[in-house]
């Protein structure tokens, strides 16, 4: 089982959508929110995904396709 920590940034029009609930149903991943700050016009959630690496990668791609920014917890690693 792999474990991947991500940070999701929400634009205003995605704040009301239950995206984390959705990926938990669409893919075999366990979602676990650790830290979040969701405001009226923007928001972010730091989330742990546990599951097979391939399922996690599909869940991440799905989140991106739903219109939110998904990055590893470290944010930009390339320096």
């Amino acid at each position, binding site marked *: 089982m792999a*474990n991947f920590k991500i940070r999701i940034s929400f634009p205003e029009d995605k704040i009301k959508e239950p995206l984390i609930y959705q990926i938990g149903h669409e893919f075999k991943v366990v979602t676990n929110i650790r*830290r979040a700050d969701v405001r009226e016009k923007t928001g972010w959630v730091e989330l742990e995904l546990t599951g097979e690496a391939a399922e996690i990668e599909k869940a991440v791609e799905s989140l991106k396709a739903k219109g939110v920014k998904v*990055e590893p917890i*470290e*944010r930009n690693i390339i320096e």
Partner: protein
Amino acid sequence: MNRKSAVSDILKQKIKGLKCRECGKLYPPVALHVCEFCFGPLEVDYNYDEIKRHISHERIENGPKSLWRYADLLPVEGYPTVGLYAGLTPLIEAKNLGTELGLNRLYIKNDTVNHPTLSFKDRVVAIAITRAKELGFSAVACASTGNLANSVAAHAAEARLQCYVFIPGDLEAGKILGSLIYAPTVIAVNGNYDDVNRLCSEVAGEYNWGFVNINIRPYYAEGSKTLAFETAEQLGWRAPDHVVVPVASGSLLTKIWKGFNELKMLGLIESVPTRVNGAQAEGCSPVATAFKEGRDFIKPVKPKTIAKSIAIGNPADGYYALKAVHESKGAFDTATDGETIEGIKLLARTEGIFAETAGGVTIAVLKKLAMNGLIPKDDTVVAYVTGNGLKTQEAVINAVGDVVRIEPSMDSFEKTLSIKK
């Protein structure tokens, strides 16, 4: 240099462990960078009481002529084993540039001549690889398009460690030459920047490597404090009134602020009057924009700038850099690509220092801060120039004029140049 002679003696008890910057939870000093509880970043927790009992101006001044003279405040437990010559770069009194900008006490901290790969990354990597060896890693890695990759590859070669460098698949071959020469394994990942980021995070989670800017990051980042330590020592043990620092991940600025404050806490300088000013490229200025808009959070951006070494759209330490600038009552400003090139040329023309694009951004922002009256003319100012211009020649290739071409005769020489004997 003998490894042991690199520092006078080592304080065994100086590191307590790692501490979460957000919730304060404590961890042992291992290869870990994120708090398991709140996902906040971890930072090295020092035993300052122990350090204070030993550290002194004399102890530092009698130390090696490198950043290891500050070993008491660096997160390694034994003698340094790699990067023994990093740091202690010149602090140049920039009288010519100061005259042009109307600043009477301007200094340039010149990390274009850092050893061995000509950027400030040699500081952080010397610490990171020494620590990675202490932690027992036989392989190190990084994700980088330039300075960091060069430095990790060089230090890994010296340390005889396996080295993996991840780069985006579309990076020009020339960009990676300065890493390939040290014979690391360079992995070009097909996909965009975000894909490379994600893969590196996954790899770091699965493989037992010392990933310098991921699981070794708490130790790696501390190396930047040495820029503050050296500045204070080179100014006669006092902190400057202003510093101007390029902001990429935000770690450098944050650690320079921390470094000055550590010196004060330990009684090595009297006060920290320093206003910390951040410099970003206009085409990648998420932290400067948050500052201008009065936000306490960073909105990620897509970089579009020639200053690629500081083009980080969602900086890991952006929030902390913003906080440091606020705490110190400093400011942020940005430079366009054109201003960046002019900044490079201005520094070269006035002080004989050829900086890479990040240095151009710093000098351009220094100029703006001076012109806007944010830096008074008699204040002591230090601008950090963090990388060598020979690495980003393409940025200025069309901006440096041309040669004067003549025939091989005195007549042609004199007519063309119109110089009086």
